[in-house]
């Protein structure tokens, strides 16, 4: 069985700065080789998503989650590597052309704040109908039926379809965002912090809706979030990113129960728990290393890591497999629970 999405050695670099605008212009027109420093937003990342699986992607802001997701969904082009959707190699199609590709409907995205990501001059109906018109060529009665069906499934009452985004509450907007993305029945739904702006009581309803839709349609989810407590509940597997690299992956419950990478350990320790004493917890101090032309031989976490030995700045730890889990740390063995080692 081939995986639904197979990402291999995937990178996205952004050139930055240069001495000044003038020399940048000169360089562009003189045709000299681009030798600008680069931000390694996503650096040589590989993972797969199976059919029907929910994969969580966690990491701090600036770690490259959003860049990775935008490149996967073909909103921007990658710098290097391959993305396979089933048997189709997506990285060969430039992102500009992919918008009109028949496979566009197979990967859809739910953006962070539906209030910002839905056209303010579109009613809820137009917002949901737009991808159906463009990708499924639906019109008239068939279109109306489909929109109403999807809206109902997403728990959006039909009278609300005539409203504009600003006339809807946060929870209703989130429903519009989800309905719009799943209207064309994608195989993979990428969700970028869909509940970040919502109250807990609304968040619960949206998460349960997502779980129910997944059961009905057998979609796969890539769920980007920094809320570990939510990821733990919704996701089968989790990928932890730090500064452009995947540092740990594995079944969500196991990763949060026995984090192996020091960054994951700090992340789990930082999750607030009711009535728990925050004193003496593992804390992540300082700022992350610069992502601009990082030294390929130094562990990205070096400097913030409690451990930080000479080995960490001499060799970049590779992602090593331990049972169902992968960790990029020289000292992962020390934290292995007895069930794996």
């Amino acid at each position, binding site marked *: 069985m081939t995986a639904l999405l197979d990402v291999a050695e995937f990178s996205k670099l952004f050139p930055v700065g240069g001495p000044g605008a003038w020399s940048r212009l000169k360089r562009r027109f003189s045709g000299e080789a681009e030798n600008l420093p680069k931000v390694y937003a996503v650096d040589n990342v590989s993972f797969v998503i199976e059919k029907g699986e929910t994969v969580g992607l966690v990491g701090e802001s600036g770690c490259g989650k959003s860049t990775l997701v935008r490149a996967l969904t073909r909103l921007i082009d990658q710098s290097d590597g391959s993305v396979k959707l089933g048997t189709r190699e997506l990285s060969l199609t430039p992102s500009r052309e992919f918008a009109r590709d028949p496979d566009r409907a197979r990967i859809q995205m739910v953006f962070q704040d539906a209030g910002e990501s839905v056209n303010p001059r579109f009613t809820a109906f137009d917002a949901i109908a737009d991808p159906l018109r463009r990708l499924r060529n639906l019109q008239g009665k068939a279109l109306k039926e489909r929109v109403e069906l999807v809206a109902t499934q997403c728990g959006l009452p039909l009278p609300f379809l005539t409203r504009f985004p600003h006339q809807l509450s946060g929870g209703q907007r989130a429903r519009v965002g989800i309905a719009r993305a799943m209207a064309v029945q994608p195989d993979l739904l990428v969700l970028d912090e869909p509940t970040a702006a919502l109250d807990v*009581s609304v968040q619960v309803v949206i998460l349960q809706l997502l779980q129910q839709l997944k059961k009905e349609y057998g979609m796969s989810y890539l769920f980007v979030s920094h809320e570990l407590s939510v990821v*733990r509940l919704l996701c089968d597997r989790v990928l932890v990113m730090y500064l452009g690299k995947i540092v740990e992956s594995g079944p969500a419950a196991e990763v949060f129960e026995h984090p192996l990478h020091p960054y994951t350990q700090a992340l789990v320790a930082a*999750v*607030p728990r*009711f009535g728990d004493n*925050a004193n003496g917890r593992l804390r992540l101090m300082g*700022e992350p290393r610069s992502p601009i032309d990082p030294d390929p031989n130094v562990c990205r976490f070096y400097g913030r890591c409690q451990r930080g030995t000479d080995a960490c700045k001499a060799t970049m730890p590779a992602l090593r497999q331990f049972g169902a889990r992968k960790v990029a740390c020289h000292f992962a063995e020390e934290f292995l629970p007895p069930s794996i080692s």
Partner: protein
Amino acid sequence: MIVAPALSVEGLSVDFRTRAGMVRALDNVSFSVAKGETIALVGESGSGKSVTAYAVMGILDPAGRVSAGRAVLGGLDLLSATPSQLAEVRGREIAMIFQNPRTALNPIRTVGRQIADVLIRHGNVPRREAPEQAVEMLRSVGITDPGRRAKAYPFEMSGGMCQRVMIGIALAAKPSLLIADEPTTGLDVTTQAVIMDLVNDLAKELGMATIFITHDLALAGQRSARIVVMHAGHVVENAPTKDLYEQPRHPYTAELIAATPDSAASLDELASIPGSLPDLRRTDLPPCRYSERCPRKIAACAQPLPHAELDPGHMVACWHPLPKRPKGATALGAPKVSAA
């Protein structure tokens, strides 16, 4: 232990003029915070948490008006104080940390100068010494290389660092009361933990009373000694953190705890809260603004709200509170997730 409260809010009501008429955003809100104590105001958006803070600080939107109540800080009623009295108190006695540090900081002034401004205005620091002390302040909020960072503008710093600067500004004049309005919303969990540690440590060091406003019940439960739960402009429950979690007596509090993902073992176990906040513009609002969503509604709910002290220090505004549970059981009866 009875300590004189640093701030005591009594019967605070705030009305907002809107196109649809007067809206009572806060109705008879009372709570107090003792010196050195940290309390949390918790509720969904629209519950009146921030309005409470703004009313106490005297920075309500011009459409809002305090219609009743007192907020006493060291013998001075902040709500009836003159503008010049308030200006003396603000910054020196009460300070506030705002939600979004990037927009709350002045974008065209270096952070060192912004701290120096507070020191000069409220800290009785001579103008000449202020820049140096501002650097010290940056150091004490954990900014590395503070001498260089003092000359930076807010846009040159990360969100976590901006929040540290905000804390530095708030604490520059060593206030006796700190109001932190969602200080870590929009920050990473790892940064959130560090910032909250910092606020807690500094509060302890200065013996400050802290009011911590958040929608994250788990965070409030971890960081405060007492939790005040708000719903649609009412205080529905006010109890020590441990009691509130183990023995929530107001139905809304119990539902809020059950909806917090922290406590559940699976998604199915999470319970949503039926209905939504009532439209406060309505003229026929019931005395208990939760009653229309409430599974435990009885006939008595049509009477004016009680403010019953069910246990010492455990206030509940409900006619039909949940019964007391046997000791040790959590709100859900579910085992807690072990900390790794």
